[in-house]
């Protein structure tokens, strides 16, 4: 168990530089919005979802519309439902208690890295190790940004904002298997680009992913029938 946690932790270390930077940026924004460190820490611990945290902090203004902020944040996090559903096989034979605990630490990064290695017969502790790595680094990043933000120079100059995108691109490449996949990838990308322009919130992510997955089912069923 310890070994698997450590393995998951180490596998997520390369991306943690970027996670730290994003956390630092959030910390800096929080100071300008008058959010206390305790409130930021509560967000880190109990929400633990970077994009939703950015959105909440960004939408805090006077007068405040609480319900719109809550629904917008949950809309962004709707993808966690799909992420959870995709982990079903991985959590087979795991107790409900462990499921309830480990799922809180699932992030885009730790999930993507785990899914890219699913053929390696890893356990749920690998996923937990990855989640803990991101959790700790994210917390330290926000802490640094909050208290030492003025000392951090522009992270974009170092291309660190691209690290997430590059990591996910590499992971998608590793998932590529057949020519059908290429059709699905291009179709999903096209739908995402179009819907991102049309839909004013981040639900385009869910709609595009579902569209791509439906096409995947259709194409796979057709090739099975042939």
């Amino acid at each position: 168990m310890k070994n698997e946690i450590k393995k998951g932790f180490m596998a997520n270390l390369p991306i943690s530089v970027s996670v730290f930077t994003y956390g630092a940026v959030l910390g800096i924004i929080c100071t300008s919005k008058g959010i206390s460190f305790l409130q930021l820490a509560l967000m880190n611990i109990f929400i633990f979802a970077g994009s939703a945290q950015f959105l909440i902090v960004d939408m805090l203004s006077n007068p405040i519309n609480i319900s719109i902020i809550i629904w917008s944040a949950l809309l962004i996090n709707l993808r966690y439902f799909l992420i959870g559903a995709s982990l079903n096989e991985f959590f087979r034979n795991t107790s409900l208690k462990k499921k309830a605990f480990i799922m809180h630490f699932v992030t885009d990064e730790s999930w993507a890295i785990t899914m890219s290695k699913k053929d390696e017969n890893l356990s749920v502790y690998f996923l937990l190790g990855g989640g803990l790595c991101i959790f700790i680094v994210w917390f330290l990043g926000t802490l640094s940004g909050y208290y030492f933000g003025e000392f951090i120079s522009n992270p974009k100059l170092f291309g660190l904002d691209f690290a997430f995108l590059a990591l996910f691109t590499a992971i998608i490449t590793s998932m590529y298997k057949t020519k059908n996949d290429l059709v699905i990838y291009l179709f999903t990308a096209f739908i995402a680009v179009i819907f991102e322009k049309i839909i004013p919130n981040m639900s385009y992510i869910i709609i595009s992913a579902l569209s791509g997955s439906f096409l995947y089912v259709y194409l796979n069923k057709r090739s099975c029938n042939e």
Partner: protein
Amino acid sequence: MSSYDILTIIFFVAIGTYTLRVSGLLLSNKLKKFKNIDIFLESIPATLLIALIVPSIIKIGIIGIFAGFTTIYIMYKTKSVLLSMSSAVFIVALYRNGLLF
């Protein structure tokens, strides 16, 4: 905007996010009665990641697209996530510091 407002938001988003995280996993067994759900779920990682990143890469501009293709090429050739990721970050950093093109 009071401290109470912020705590209310944190409370409800935290409950909602946790429910989404756990319900996806717990309900996936119930979803199994639907035909082809296994094939559908198998495709979710790739389609979700594509939907998440492609619009952001395009927003970065030509250098984002170039770095994206570089990532794919290096990953395809070397199978190293770390190498492909760091190469792309390096290219973007060079460009933003006026050392590329």
